[in-house]
């Protein structure tokens, strides 16, 4: 299984995502923002960071990168895509996922080990979880406050497309405690927490991030 990880200018967690793919049994493939080739990968991760400094809206410039045209096109054809943090913001800006991420309601950056509930296992990136499974994933963002209009939120909730929900503490003011969402087909998932930081017992507070990649592997094999 070859999993591409895109580096935009200002991407920070690309090395972590590449390592996570490797530790979880995949073959990591670095992808460069300025190239329009995905090199035939089986899935794509848009990792965290501050693409283009996030000086405009987060992700608003990265969505125009040459690589994104191909990501959008192949995602439409079913390619599994995972957007983490800044990658989630890019997916929203690229309209692969609905809604938007705005500044945290507490107005500061927040880094913490966050409890989440897995709300759907019917996606390319959550199939290895048990329904309703409670997990701990590292969270770190300044603009992770997920918002969408009421109709969109209702549609997401009704269709079971809320992928993850914050437990205990809503760290950023997201509507309905939403931590991550999926597209209708379930191949594109975006979330603010960072599963790539929860794959190594020496550096993570849990190993719950591994199941994201195990889900992918299971789906591609199955």
């Amino acid at each position: 299984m070859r999993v591409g990880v895109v580096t935009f200018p200002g991407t920070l967690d690309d090395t972590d995502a590449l390592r996570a793919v490797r530790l979880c049994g995949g073959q990591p493939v670095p992808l460069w923002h300025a190239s329009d080739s995905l090199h035939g990968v089986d899935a794509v991760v848009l990792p965290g960071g501050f693409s283009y400094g996030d000086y405009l809206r987060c992700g608003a410039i990265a969505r125009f990168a040459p690589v994104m045209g191909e990501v959008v096109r192949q995602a439409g054809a079913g390619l599994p895509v995972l957007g983490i943090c800044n990658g989630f913001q890019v997916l929203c800006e690229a309209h692969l996922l609905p809604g938007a991420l705005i500044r945290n309601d507490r107005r500061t950056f927040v880094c913490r080990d966050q409890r989440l509930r897995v709300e759907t296992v019917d996606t390319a990136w959550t199939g290895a979880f048990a329904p309703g499974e409670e997990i701990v994933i590292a969270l770190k963002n300044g603009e992770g406050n997920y918002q969408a209009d009421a109709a969109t939120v209702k549609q997401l909730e009704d269709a079971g497309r809320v992928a993850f929900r914050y437990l205990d503490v809503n760290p950023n003011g997201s509507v309905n405690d939403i931590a991550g969402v999926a597209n209708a087909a379930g191949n594109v998932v975006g979330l603010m927490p960072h599963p790539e930081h929860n794959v190594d017992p020496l550096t993570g507070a849990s190993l719950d991030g591994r199941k994201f990649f195990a889900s992918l592997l299971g789906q591609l094999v199955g």
Partner: protein
Amino acid sequence: MNAAATPDTPQPWAELGLKEDEYARIRQLLGRRPTSCELAMYSVMWSEHCSYKSSKLQLKRFAELGKQTPRGPLLAGIGEQAGVVDIGDGWAVTFKVESHNHPSYVEPYQGAATGVGGIVRDILAMGARPVACMDSLRFGPLDAPDTARVLPGIVAGVGGYGNCLGLPNIGGETVFHPSYLGNPLVNALCVGVLRHEDLHLAFATGEGNKVVLYGAATGGDGIGGASILASETFDADGPAKRPSVQVGDPFMEKLLIECTLELFAAGVVIGIQDLGAAGISCATSELASAGDGGMRVNLDLVPLRDPTLTPEEILMSESQERMAAVVAPENVERFMEICAKWDVQASVIGEVTDGDRLVIDWRGERVVDVDPRTVAHDGPVYDRPSERPEWIDALNAASAAALARPASGEDLRETLLRVVASPNQADKSWVTDQYDRYVRGNTVLAQPEDAGVLRIDEGSGLGIALATDCNARFAMLDPFLGAQLALCEAYRNVAATGAEPVAITDCLNFGSPEDPSVMWQFERAVSGLIEGCKALGTPVTGGNVSFYNRTGEENILPTPLVGMMGVIDDVADRIPMGFAAAGDGIWLLGPDADEAALSGSVWAEAVHGHLGGRPPQPDFALEKALAGLLQTASKTRLLTSAHDLSDGGLAQALAESCLRRGLGAGVELPGDAFVALFAETPGRMLVSADPSNAEALEALCRAAAVPCRRLGAVTEAPELEIQGQFALPLDELRQRWSATIPAAL
């Protein structure tokens, strides 16, 4: 040159911060009056911040320490942009701490942000990939109105810049004291990793080689920042120098990091230097003076953000995110390609020449023609008068012995709560939760652990540990001992993880060097560090001096901050802080508390607002024995936790060890329970171990001649019980400990 023909033209040397004799010396060196551009260069390069003119005589003494660490010789030491330590297997680590105090008072966010940015570029310029940062912060009282302005801005600035660079922040300190009210301290540390063969140094060599300026364009920000801000005291009527503070662009710095590392890997860099304080003045004069030739620069080739800048301003600008490299002509094209890949602007602005002059032209006019050594190295050196202040005897005489003590178990319980809830001892997660500690995936331990631990080699597990410490209250009582106690505390914090402490960087924050009592404090602190480092075998790799930290006439507490770096062979063996399992035994390693060590303690400050007496005596042999013991215990996985005893004594260590994972403890204290809990005798650690390892631990302590006392056990019951005194539910303890900082901000 026009300057030679017009010797009597009045020049604004005083406005630029030069003294009359310094200006006379410049005229003497040049044999004429300086041009206005030369005057600008000399004024910034001869400022306290850049020239170390008041501290040079003292800093030279660090050379006595030599370059030998417990793990081999330093690969680069004092005088380079940062020291480089060989940690084995071909790996080297470079680390340095630097102050950005004055800018952070004027404009907290940008001052702190660019403080991080500057130290990161120093590390990068050594050829290393920056891999983590730390921040040691000092503020006025937590409840002071200005602290509510300064603290959130500084924390957001440290986080905003470091987070956006992708550097985990793995530790540091947040300390409050009234002396920092008008002069907060922002000491930022960066650590980088390189292979031995990747080491790069700042020098220009090879006639015809090109000087390339790359990174951000040069703007009007931070002009004269170094000389005007770092070397002057703030007036009581507040700041009016906002334009002198630089503005940071961490995104550009991130590109600069990746671009520079790719330039190194491509082998197209001969010499390199970052542009920090004094900008192009500093980079050109230092590169040229460290090399074997001269340099010719054309200022018209410098990309400008503001085309109206004068040549003096271009030379002095402290615009951030810029680097200068010396590149062979045949490699310039490749250099430019790599910069283009990363969208980094790069321009050849000059070349290395034979001879020994630094000449700079602007619009067809020669604006600088100097010997670069006179700019970079021949600045004034002051042997400032130093005198032991009279007040120190009275201060030392006012010990904590006379202070009222808790009379009952109930009083003792309330005293413990007051200590752990005092601003300096309270939970700092309001600060540290604003920093990314995970990025890069190698953070094995981070704050609130005793030291940050990073994995360097994923294959072997080789890693490093870093801690910064300074108890300035001790340094106020005795700067010699205070510096040594800071050194011991940082050493012990690193040792607590199981790492072997190997070398230090320091950031010496003091008041005005023109005050003889401050010079005395400074000299004593340097002496204390030198003797302490000799005893511990840990050389000084480099660091920073910050003077003029005061508001009006009040100097800050002397704050000789020590950053200690240690090496751990396998990070999987690291010992975390915090009780790990109910049923584990709890031991105190090191001597029992000494009543005299209540002087200068947190208890005296938090309960009585008292600072007086003599600080405790460090015991270097004990510290070394303790560190050796912890290394053995780490390799044999003997301990489940370790936590150093320092500020707040055993009381604080017990509270933090319980709260880390929400496990209780039942302990029995030797002697006077109050003294046992609150005295701050150094050379001690609180550890826990599975009961099956009790005998092995006690045998190890006997072999190392480290006193060892079993205090009790970790309990499932969520309370801290001091037998015969009180029991304190952890919920209540946590509530008091964690409420203080958020409530004030």
